[in-house]
């Protein structure tokens, strides 16, 4: 970290974080990273290799990646409009709705899964007609995994994007309107690009949350290797018999996640990447 006294060589002129800020920042970082380091130290590295060639693990990784990306996509498609409505449209009860949107965050995951079952399960409010009319049953299918992950991930996206929308200078949109842009055009050409950093950040968050989703998935989608067993479920399964392998698998999950994030952030989340 570049910190320097007032009189200092050329390259460190701009970035002199005050220590009063750097100290809590370092503590925060240590707090987050030491447990991760501990985990790495506890990881039996030899078994990581074995795990990676195990077809069950590979299936779980593939399923996890596929479902979490789909869930992030669903969250994006559903969440951005919802965030827009919450930020920009006046309607009665909006504060309540804004609070309700946060709830999947607070709900103990297993209860979240139960809630999904009461809605989309065989006997659920929506699930029962779905089955009797179209013969579609969601639980115990990969679709259920995506649904469970979307359910827990959606609030992240909505929150990020809504915040950005509120912070945005609405006069850019006004300027676009005076240029004859329809609401849709304003939305897609002005609003969305201006909040792109927040949308990318929110989608990243949602994806990360979906990747780690456990409670709602096991409750709503069950645990069937190759079909609904994502990596976190595989970790739990392994925890019963082989703690080291479970930790190793978690580390693999983390590695995938870090890889994607670093690539993504370098591409999209550089300061001003979307602006300059």
């Amino acid at each position: 970290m570049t910190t320097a006294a007032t009189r200092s060589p050329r390259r460190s002129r701009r970035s002199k974080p005050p220590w009063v800020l750097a100290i809590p920042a370092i503590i925060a970082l240590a707090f987050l990273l030491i447990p991760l380091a501990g985990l790495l130290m506890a990881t039996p590295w030899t078994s990581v290799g074995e795990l990676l060639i195990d077809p069950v693990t590979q299936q779980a990784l593939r399923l996890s990646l596929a479902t979490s990306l789909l869930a992030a996509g669903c969250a994006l498609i559903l969440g951005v409009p919802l965030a827009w409505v919450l930020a920009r449209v006046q309607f009665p009860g909006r504060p309540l709705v804004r609070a309700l949107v946060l709830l999947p965050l607070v709900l103990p995951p297993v209860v979240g899964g139960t809630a999904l079952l009461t809605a989309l399960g065989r006997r659920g409010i929506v699930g029962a007609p779905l089955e009797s009319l179209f013969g579609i049953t969601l639980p115990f299918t990969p679709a259920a995994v995506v649904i469970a992950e979307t359910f827990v991930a959606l609030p992240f996206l909505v929150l990020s994007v809504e915040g950005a929308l509120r912070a945005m200078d609405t006069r850019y949109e006004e300027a676009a309107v005076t240029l004859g842009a329809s609401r849709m055009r304003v939305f897609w050409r002005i609003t969305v690009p201006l909040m792109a950093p927040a949308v990318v950040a929110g989608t990243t968050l949602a994806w990360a949350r979906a990747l780690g989703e456990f409670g709602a998935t096991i409750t709503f989608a069950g645990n069937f290797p190759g079909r609904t067993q994502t990596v976190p479920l595989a970790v739990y399964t392994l925890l019963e018999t082989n703690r080291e392998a479970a930790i190793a698998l978690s580390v693999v999950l983390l590695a995938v996640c870090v890889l994607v994030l670093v690539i993504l952030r370098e591409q999209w989340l550089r300061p001003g990447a979307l602006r300059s």
Partner: protein
Amino acid sequence: MSAQGQELQRQGLERPGLQLQAQVARSDFVLDVHIAQPRGRVLAIVGPNGSGKSSLLQVVAGLVSSAQGIVVVDGDTWMNEDTFTSAEKRSVGMVFQDYLLFPHLSVQENISFGLRSRGSSRAHARATTADWLGRFGIAHLAERKPRQLSGGQSQRVALARALVTQPAVLLLDEPLAALDAQTRVSVRAEMRSHLSQFCGVTLLVTHDPIEAMVLADDICVLDQGSVVQCGTVADVTRHPATEYVAKLMGLNLVSGIATAGTVALDSGGQLVTTNSDLTGAVLATLRPSAIAVHRQPPQSSARNAWEGVIRDMEHLGDRVRLDMEARPSVVVDVTSQSVVELGLQPGQQVWLSVKATEIDVFKAHDEA
């Protein structure tokens, strides 16, 4: 609908152009204006800061949803008690006081945005944009992002963006304010040629009286949300309704009661004029350069002479402007040479004189 509203709308259908009669209430400010402007003419809106100039433009553009009143353009009712055409359906072009260029789009994309929004093909938009980039001398900036532009460069892009769509009403909120003197002259000339070809209504907010005189046909002076004076540039320049307007136009304005060619001034003192037809409340203007300065009581043919103290002096190019404390108090322009010859300096007592023929007297406006 009120009778007044119906009348306005009838007029709107008959006379092409802008009929505006609107009220906007803000925290401690009320805008209440009535403006009618025919097509093909440019209306300059001038007034002090916070007088509601920008708000007025926003009402026309449809950006103030809380506005009350009527907006009729070329017979189309954009707003009345029952109707509200949303902003994107109004054919307006707008240049904002602080640019509002889209930060994520390049200069060329910013300019073609309006064309594309209004349905131009990509190729047509590109060609038209290229044309305008050239006209504004910013072709070399086409691929830049707004944050890479200087203030003045941004303003030119904003101008081009609004002009490119050939709107029915052009709304310009101090479009030249950020340009430097040289660029301003060339862009102003360019703009004037565009405005003269432009057959719609133009509303131009400006602080600069020269800009108003050069670019506009009519002037509307706002103060604290109300119209103080409206008229052609010549009328307003010649017969300013208030001291504020006169100062804006670089003139001295005095008021008084006329009797047989002599005006007894409200502020004390009197002026002899050549106009003996007028009686009653009148206004009179004195050009600053028409007033002569003397160290001694003048022995000249000038029929008006009075004493005063120099309150302040300002250099204006090759002239010096004296701010006089006198009856009447006026500003006087003299050459730098005179300043040296007469040894003028603030606080000094001098004599002023003006020929009766140089005083323009006219009846006090009804609305004043």
